[in-house]
């Protein structure tokens, strides 16, 4: 009897309860769509501008180009200072990624497997470098790399970016390595593997996704920073950041070319992001999600 009275209110309430999830779903999709639009509209505006002529950009505000032109892109691909800007940037980004991941791999292994004198302090010190304000370092970097004769080279930018990318790579890789059971190491050593062979043949394949994610994040943070790369380069290595400042001249800003250059900087990130989409959060959380 008492069971029946308990059940009754729930069954009576059911029709109304069925309405509410549908409403909730609509609200939730509405919010998601609104947010995605909010993300895409400014990017769309840049893309839109990159296909317009400068006269059209300055004379009217229109949602799509009236006279569709590829001239802005033609300018970039036809001028070596422009397209070499991308090449120079990609060179130092690649160097930085390679250096960061290579030195971070053994270090992350050490942090994840052993305790040693000062390990916690060292790990904390690495973190502080990831967080250091770039503005503090811009001027001292200029002096340091000038005095060792590396100013205006790719390696100077690559080394400078190591300041925040090496710590990031160590943290991310350590996060992935702690997920690998220690028994695997021990079994391999018992089987007579040397450390080097074990590490390359067995351990690295096990954390392949971690290496990919660490490399992606080094690539990304080296790519998005143009403050330090601009400070450390001038004539021989004109990075894309330097090239973009050339769009302002005595006759005013060349908006079309600036927009096209901006669109081209978005593309490398957009191309690789698909492969790491499930690990992005882990990377941003320094391997700790």
């Amino acid at each position, binding site marked *: 009897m008492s069971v029946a009275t308990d059940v009754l209110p729930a069954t009576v309430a059911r029709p109304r309860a069925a309405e509410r999830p549908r409403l909730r779903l609509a609200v939730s999709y509405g919010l998601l769509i609104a947010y995605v639009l909010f993300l895409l509209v400014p990017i769309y505006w840049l893309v839109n501008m990159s296909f317009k002529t400068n006269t059209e950009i300055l004379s009217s505000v229109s949602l799509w180009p009236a006279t569709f032109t590829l001239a802005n892109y033609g300018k970039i691909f036809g001028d070596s200072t422009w397209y070499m800007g991308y090449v120079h940037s990609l060179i130092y980004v690649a160097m930085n990624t390679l250096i960061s991941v290579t030195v971070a791999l053994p270090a992350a292994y050490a942090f994840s497997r052993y305790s040693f004198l000062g390990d916690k302090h060292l790990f904390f010190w690495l973190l502080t470098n990831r967080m250091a304000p770039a503005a503090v370092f811009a001027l001292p970097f200029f*002096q340091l790399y000038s005095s060792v004769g590396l100013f205006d080279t790719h390696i100077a930018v690559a080394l400078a970016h190591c300041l925040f990318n090496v710590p990031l790579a160590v943290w991310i890789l350590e996060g992935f390595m702690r997920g690998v059971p220690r028994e695997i190491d021990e079994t391999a050593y018992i089987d007579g593997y040397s450390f080097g062979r074990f590490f390359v043949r067995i351990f690295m394949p096990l954390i392949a996704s971690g290496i990919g994610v660490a490399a992606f994040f080094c690539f*990304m943070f080296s790519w998005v920073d143009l403050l330090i790369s601009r400070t450390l380069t001038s004539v021989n290595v004109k990075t894309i950041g330097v090239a973009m400042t050339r769009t302002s001249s005595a006759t005013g800003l060349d908006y079309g070319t600036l927009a096209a250059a901006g669109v081209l900087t978005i593309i490398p990130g957009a191309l690789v992001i698909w492969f790491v989409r499930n690990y992005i959060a882990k990377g941003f*959380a320094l391997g700790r999600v």
Partner: protein
Amino acid sequence: MDKPVNQRAWFLVLPVFLLVAFSAILPLMTVVNYAFNDTFGSNAFFWVGLEWFEEVLTSERVHEALLRQLLFSAIILAIEIPLGIAVALTLPKRGIGASVCLVILALPLLIPWNVVGTIWQVFARVDIGLLGAFLSQIGVDFNIGQDSIDAWVVLIVMDVWHWTSLVTLLAYAGLQAIPEAYYQAGRIDQASRWAVFRYIELPKMKGVLLIAILLRFMDSFVIYTEPFVVTGGGPGSATTFLSIDLVKMAIGQFDLGPAAAFSIMYFFVILLICWVFYTVMTNLDRQDLPE
């Protein structure tokens, strides 16, 4: 923590130590050198002790920049954290839709920071930008070059656009880690949507949200490139945040002494926040271990 003690592990860490020390300690020593000396060029230095520190600590201008910085960080945290969680709750849990959403969300995070600045600088212009043109069309007197409120609004919206996805991605990762059984238990108890959020999802997301808050606070605290491109710190000095003020001081006016003292104090604040971050991280690691 039952990791075996092995001092030879230092050899594995040594390359990282040397590489980061080269890029971190040497530049920092230059800064320290400038902070305690005065120079008239040609490498002649005069010891001035704590004079520069006093100057910076009592400087009205630095106080204002610090206040602006704290206000900016507080506002963007107050917007980005709730919005990020809300968007994470609406994301599809699996399937191609989830993948596409993740990629679109991550897109702003991968754009070079000065391009982010350029996008919003153009977007907010009254004559050629969609946002500016739309606002002036509906009769809002909008000008980020002259009105400091307008400049602030644009910078905040820009930061929300740029970084809310980070909060969303972290919150989403936290949500994904909740076992289905928890939700079933909630359904059996006929928990309301709010109760599910408050008593199941929020506690499970606590760790990642802490990371998100600290990361966003830290990164907004050292923000430089984006506001520099959009407003250049203006109008006047309305959007001159700490990093912008520092660079103005060091490169614009070439006041290296005060700028160096400023840098060192700035760095100590960062160090303090880092320590909180580190403590949170290591606590999270310890919680993970028994499972």
